[in-house]
Structure formats: structure tokens, C-alpha cells
């Protein structure tokens, strides 16, 4: 192998890597907020008894869980602009694809969490004179959240990893910067190894923290 090793070129560009990290965090934050809040609506919709709400919510979940995120991102970036009169930036397209996908998955998590609580809770609360809305807000949801937290934190980590898909539409995040460095200095081994390690070093502690969280929650039952 006659490769000229060049790790320096990777570290000589801290601005590039920082810009990438900032982009990754930005799209992660956007997709986390959008995905979970839309997911909560979808989850509640799936739990509804009214067909007019239940059916669209179900269609949404089935469609966005069963299509690959990359296909959705490319559709939003290349296809949607043909139909709408305004620009879709790379960030918008990637954020739409990742958020809608996450909303579909987290919607199911929310639905499962609410459904898993025993009927006794409902009846007990109503015996105390609470309305359905109050019961949902003060009794069901807080307990459901405690049960759903592990799955939701897993979702959050998935969203973080999916941020790399935004590089397919040239959004500036960490992998995109890795590709840039590799293409200018012709050092793909060094560039992609560093990017992989950066992701690992950042995510691994978070993953471990979620394991600890899971164990603590289970103990509390």
C-alpha cells in the first residue's frame, strides 16, 4: 500500500469540523423537536376512537415507517419543489424527511405507552371526579412518559445518526465535511476514521447513559 498518510490535513481544519458539528447538532435539534411533537399528535390520533382521526394517523405511520428516509429526503429536495412555489433548502428537505420518519416511529411509542396503562387508572381517576382530559393530563401521560422514555431516547439517538443522511443533499454536517476534506486532500482513510471516531466518542456515553436510565426506571416499578 503506497498511501501517503495525512492525519494533519484533517486536524488542520478545525473550522471545517466545527462547522460540521454545528450543522449536525442543528438538524438534530430541529428533527428531535419536530419529530417528537408531531409524534405525540400522531400517537394520540392513533389512540382515538373516531375513524376520521384514527385512519389518517394510521396511514401516516404506515407510510413513513415503511419508506426509507433517504428516499423521503430526496423526494422533498428534488420532487416537492416542482409542486410548490417556494424554495426547499437542503436543511428543510432533510429535516422534513427525518422528522416525519421520527414522528411515525415515536407516534407508535406514544401510543404504546398510553395503551399499556391499566384501565384501573382511568376508573380510579374518574371515581375521583376528573374529566377525561384531566385524567389524561395528570394521571395517564406522566406515567406513560416514564414507561416510554427508554424507547424515546433510543429514537433520539437514531435521529442523531440519521443526520448524516443530510449530506446526500449537500447539507453541511459532520460527514459532509469529512467528504470535503477527503476530496481536497485525498486522505479518505484518515478523514472517515476521524469522523467515525467523533460520532462514537460523542454518542457512546449517551448510549451508556440511556442504559443506566432504563435500569433506574425499571427499579422504580
Amino acid at each position: 500500500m503506497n498511501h501517503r498518510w495525512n492525519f494533519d490535513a484533517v486536524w488542520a481544519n478545525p473550522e471545517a469540523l466545527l462547522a460540521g458539528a454545528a450543522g449536525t447538532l442543528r438538524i438534530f435539534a430541529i428533527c428531535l423537536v419536530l419529530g417528537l411533537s408531531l409524534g405525540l399528535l400522531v400517537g394520540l390520533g392513533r389512540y382515538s376512537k373516531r375513524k376520521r382521526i384514527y385512519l389518517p394517523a394510521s396511514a401516516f405511520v404506515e407510510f413513513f415507517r415503511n419508506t426509507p428516509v433517504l428516499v423521503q429526503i430526496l423526494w422533498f429536495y428534488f420532487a416537492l419543489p416542482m409542486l410548490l412555489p417556494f424554495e426547499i433548502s437542503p436543511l428543510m428537505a432533510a429535516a422534513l424527511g427525518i422528522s416525519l420518519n421520527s414522528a411515525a416511529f415515536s407516534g407508535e411509542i406514544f401510543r404504546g405507552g398510553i395503551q399499556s396503562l391499566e384501565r384501573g387508572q382511568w376508573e380510579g381517576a374518574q371515581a375521583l371526579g376528573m374529566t377525561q382530559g384531566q385524567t389524561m393530563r395528570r394521571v395517564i401521560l406522566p406515567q406513560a412518559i416514564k414507561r416510554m422514555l427508554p424507547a424515546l431516547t433510543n429514537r433520539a439517538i437514531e435521529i442523531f445518526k440519521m443526520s448524516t443522511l443530510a449530506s446526500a443533499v449537500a447539507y453541511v454536517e459532520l460527514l459532509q465535511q469529512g467528504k470535503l476534506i477527503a476530496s481536497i486532500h485525498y486522505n479518505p482513510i484518515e478523514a472517515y476514521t476521524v469522523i467515525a471516531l467523533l460520532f462514537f466518542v460523542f454518542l457512546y456515553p449517551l448510549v451508556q447513559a440511556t442504559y443506566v436510565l432504563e435500569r433506574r426506571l425499571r427499579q422504580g416499578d
Partner: protein
Amino acid sequence: MYQWDFAPVLANSGMLAAGLVNTLKLTATALAFGVPLGLGLALLRLSRFRLLSLPAGFVVEFFRTTPPLVQLFWFFFALPILISVEMTPFVAAAITFSIQSSAFFAEVFRAGIVSIDRGQSEAARALGMSGAQAMRRVVLPQAVKRMIPAFMERSIELMKTTTLVATVSYADLLFQANELAQKTFRPLEVFTVTALIYFVVIYAASLVVHRVERRLATSGETTVH
């Protein structure tokens, strides 16, 4: 008002069909290697010897924590320089997804094995079986039955993950869609049809998974907790 025109897409449906075949080929290959590799990693992780369990644990954690697209770029552009081996795009993609999926399968295996009552393996040992025999004849068969739904879900995830190869030069369905969109200048029709093809195939697969889950549930092995 946008003028829809699906004719160029239909005229080139052969291209998309070829892409779909390649997607399925890649998914099947990655599964064929990923499952046994995952079992191996799981067993290593459960081993009493730290020399075996720690590296296996590292491999599993690394490939579950790093984004698949980063792994793909590394295997595609970096690995061939390191080991000076010629790899076709298919081989590079197959290696990436075999290892990537094996890390997830390893966790499924491990959770399944651990979930089988300790009493089972102790009883097997009391009957005179060795540790390995107990694993093979008593623990694994029961564990596998419990893990089937998780496996199937993982496989569907894998099929979705293989779309990443469109960003390198393997001609899967999404790659072909890009080609077609760039050839016909009709991205809306092309990507809409492609999304629908993926949806139909993956939705059908997930229906099969639900069927299997229900059968297992009724047979006493529930996976719904």
C-alpha cells in the same frame, strides 16, 4: 400548474426493476452473513473470558453507535486502500451491511439468550450436557423462537438502510431512480414512483412480520410485553 408525465418513468421501468432486484440481492446477502456473524458476536460477548467478550463488545457498540453512512464511506473508499484488495461495489456494500447488521443482531441474540431462564441451562447441565450442548439444544432453540419478530424487524430496517448505497456507485433501486431522474429531467414522477415501490415492498414485508408475531403470540410465546 405542473404537468405530470409518467410516460418516461413507465418507459424505463426496466431500469427501476433491475434496481429493485439489486436492492433485494444486497439485503439478502447482508442477512445471510449478518445473522451468523451476529450470533458469533453474541456468544463471544457472553463468554466468561474477558479477552473474548471485551473486543466483541467493542465491535458491537462501535457499529451500533456510528452512523451507517459513515461506515459505508469508510468501507467503500478507505478500506480498499488499507488492504489493497479489489472489491466491487456489491462486495463493499455487502461487507458494510453484514457487519453493521450483525452488531444489531448480536444484541437481539444476546437479549434472547439471556431472557431464557437460568434454570433451563442449569437443568440441562444437571442432565449431563456440557455448556455448549446446553446452549445448542436447550437455550438457543427457545431463544430463537422469541427473537424471530425482532429479527424480522431488523431485516426490514436493513432493507431500508441499503438505500444508502445510492450515494456510492452500487446500482440499487434508489441509485437507478437518481439515474432516471437525471436522464428524463422528471424528478417528481421518478421519485414518487420510487417511494411507492419501496413502500409497497416494505409494507408487504411488515405485514408478514405482524402475521408471524400473532402466530407466535397465540402459541404461547408472546413478544408483547
